[in-house]
């Protein structure tokens, strides 16, 4: 469905993505994992074309057989990719309802929009309760639900979420992941960026591991969970001790 081939993204003179390629199959939940600064968010922003106009410098991005790496963000939204940015980014002084309506900005069918708003409010009862409140006054979890609901309003085929669990309690994180799973079951493909590797591996069908702007692992979550590097660096289950009994903090990740 989405195929990224060999893209390189630069921030001025710094190369943030060193030619990454991956593919996402329709109907999957795909997780993009990695530590801070690995390039996960940059990857999503590159796909959405939110960076400078001349990015990505190299490589192609295809969505449903169409090249999108030189399209405007607005056209990409129209094609059916929706993005929930890191940190929610709701419109703080618009009401919850107005926020949801803005999600359907690219659509013209009034009746369809009305039905979808009903659907979203049913799916997120808290939003229905707070529909006339300013979005900035919602709690973090409610804002996250609003951001997801808003992103769904454009009827995406692919939903990209950037750290949906950021700043949420474990219980709310679980709820958000359950919502993501439900959205997926309704037929939306999902690309998920997460720091919470444990949770992400639990819910995804496939996962990529990024480090320093490269993809270093790509496999099913069951396999990745057993991988020594992943275990040690991301899940925090250290096994290896040196001959002298020291813990080694940094082990080189082998690039595929």
């Amino acid at each position, binding site marked *: 469905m989405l195929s990224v081939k060999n893209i390189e993204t630069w921030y001025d003179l710094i190369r943030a993505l060193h030619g990454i390629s991956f593919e996402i199959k329709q109907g999957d939940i795909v997780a993009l994992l990695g530590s801070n600064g690995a390039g996960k968010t940059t990857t999503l922003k590159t796909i*959405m074309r*939110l960076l400078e106009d001349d990015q990505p410098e190299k490589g192609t991005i295809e969505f449903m057989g169409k090249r999108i790496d030189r399209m*405007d*963000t*607005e056209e990409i*939204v*129209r094609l059916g990719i929706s*993005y929930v*940015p890191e*940190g929610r*980014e*709701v*419109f*703080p*002084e*618009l009401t919850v309802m*107005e926020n949801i*309506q*803005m*999600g359907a*900005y*690219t659509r013209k069918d009034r009746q369809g929009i009305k039905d979808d708003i009903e659907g979203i409010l049913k799916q997120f009862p808290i939003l229905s309760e707070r529909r006339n409140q300013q979005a*900035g006054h919602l709690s*973090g979890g409610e*804002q996250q639900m609003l951001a997801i609901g*808003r992103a769904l309003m*454009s009827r995406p085929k692919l939903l990209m979420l950037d750290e949906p669990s950021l*700043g949420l309690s474990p219980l709310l994180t679980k709820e958000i992941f359950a919502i993501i799973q439900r959205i997926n079951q309704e037929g939306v493909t999902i690309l998920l960026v997460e720091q919470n590797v444990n949770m992400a591996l639990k819910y995804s069908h496939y996962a990529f591991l990024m480090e320093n702007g490269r993809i270093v692992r790509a496999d099913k979550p069951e396999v990745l969970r057993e991988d020594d590097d992943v275990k040690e660096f991301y899940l925090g289950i250290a096994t290896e001790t040196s001959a002298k009994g020291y813990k080694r903090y940094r082990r080189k990740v082998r690039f595929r």
Partner: protein
Amino acid sequence: MFEMLLIEGLAIGACYGLFGVAVAIIYKTSDVVNFAQGEMGMMSTFVAYHIMTAYGWPFYIAFPATLIFAILLGMAIEFCFLRPAKEPTVLGLLILTLGAEMLLMGLAGWKWGAEQKDFPFLLSVHKTVEIFPGFALNEWTIGVFVLTTVVMVLLFLFFRYSKLGIAMRATQQNENAAKIMGIKVERVFSITWGMSSLIGALAAMFFAARSVLDPNFMMEPFMRAFAAAVLGGLTSIPGVVIGGLILGIIENFFGYAWPEWKPIVAFVVIILIITVRPSGLFSKHYVKKV
């Protein structure tokens, strides 16, 4: 006497408020005080003057033509001056609007000359209408009140209920998120400048009808309107109009008591407000939650 001073003050204040709204609309979206606002209005007024005197066309043709010109002028200035600025700082944008101001002033001086002209406006300050027995207002005052009310109501409806209006507010609050929703942010800026220029031109024509027309005539009204906007808090549109009304009344009463100090009042007001309440009287503050 008191009522006359009050009404006169309210009328001129409404005019300041209207022009302040034009400043505030741009400030809200572009985060920059548009110092070319006065000259944009001046240019539009000159176009109206030109259509009426050079071509001899009547006011009811010149008026809509001028409004269309004002919209295009606003969009053109946004397109030519602000959009090309790459990763602009607020200070940089400010300088850009100052540059635009000087350019417009130079253009007007070159085309129409620096001598003062009478602006043939539909509504006169000297003709009075008796609204009900014993209570007469001049046409200009009535026009200002009607226009300000209409503009305010339309703006309220537009920003509250229309999809484009909500999208404009969304863009003001979070440009990045607006882009993600598929809102064409550049188009929103363009429309904002067009709208602001339109409102500015309306107010400028009223100012011209009251005083004279020359390339400098919008300097003072602009500064007063800016003071009104600061007084009202720059971000709240009704606040700006109320700020304008307050400023108009203060200025009129002050000017009656000590005429020689009249031009200074506006600036004293700005200084006082900025020291006491830097965000203005009516601005709403929103602090981002992490």
